[in-house]
């Protein structure tokens, strides 16, 4: 997986006030998206934008939901597709059999280490 050059200059949503503190946030987000695809399946950029959205702080007004960054979601999906974890399906991306195998293997390793 190749991290884009812009990971250090972006926020993860337009409603965010700060960029992520974690320098490895791209990997964390990729792992989270891979897990979501494993669990739910058939998710596209729009669905991920909704998933990774949050409450926009409008000051004295009520908080409202705002969607997350589509660019980040798109880049991660491309990367996951490049490494063979996900593939394009009829309704968004879905996990590949090899990706499912890899994720199961990592899950077993987590359980053993725990």
């Amino acid at each position, binding site marked *: *997986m*190749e*991290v*884009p*050059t812009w*990971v*250090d*200059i972006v*926020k993860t949503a337009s409603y965010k*006030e*700060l*960029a*992520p*503190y974690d*320098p*490895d946030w791209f*990997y*964390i987000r*990729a*792992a*989270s998206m*891979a*897990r979501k695809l*494993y*669990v739910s399946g058939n998710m596209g950029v729009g669905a991920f934008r909704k998933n990774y959205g949050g409450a926009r702080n409008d000051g004295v007004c009520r908080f409202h939901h705002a969607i997350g960054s589509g660019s980040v979601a798109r880049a991660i999906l491309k990367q996951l597709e490049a*490494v063979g974890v996900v593939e394009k399906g009829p309704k968004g991306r879905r996990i590949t059999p090899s990706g499912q195998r*890899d*994720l*199961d293997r*990592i*899950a*077993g*390793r*987590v*359980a053993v280490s*725990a």
Partner: protein
Amino acid sequence: MPNAPRTVKDVPAQEFVIALAQYFRSTGKVRLASAITRLPVRGEKGDWERWTRPPRRGDARRRRACDLDGLTRNVFIRALRSPRCDSARIAVACGRASASPIVAYVLGFAGQDRVFRGRWRGRAPCTDRRGSRSPTASVYLVVMSVFLASDARSVPSSRSRAPNTLHPRVGSMLPETFLPFLCVFPGMDVVSCPLVPPPASIVLAMNERASDHPSPRHASPSIRRWRSPPGSTS
């Protein structure tokens, strides 16, 4: 082992995500570009030659050919917007290629809580000492020092009425972390590296309150050590 997890769903989400992220990180290659390393240095081709090309007559009329104001603003504010990297204090010295007096300006800096608001302090960077804009002006940019953005965050804002707003203050930053780094813009000639720590007058000029009203008083004699660009008459 009847309770041994066999799938992802059997593992807590947080632990699994961390493990998978470590797996991704171990298999991938990181290509991070920080604000400092992204700036052109001698030896790089491409932008370097374009940036170091001396401004020609009429460049200002040719759109974006020698738009020093826009160039400095776009390139360096964009570089400074790096939210997680160290922020940099930058002083801009500019003057006509043929004029020896150089006026120091403060470009401003971007702390972590001012990520997307690079501020431009002082007059336009390609004005000469008298304030007139000149297409042949040379723009000198020096990265004076860096400080951790986390340090900037530790300073509460005194100007914002929002209670949780933090505001980086230049005056509170220690000036000892000076970078041996030089950046070049059109018409500029590298004299010597590394840079020496600037005198107190520069530090004073970097102070935010003092730079609210930039004037030729803030000109530093140390910047005059910079040689004029080739072809200049100074």
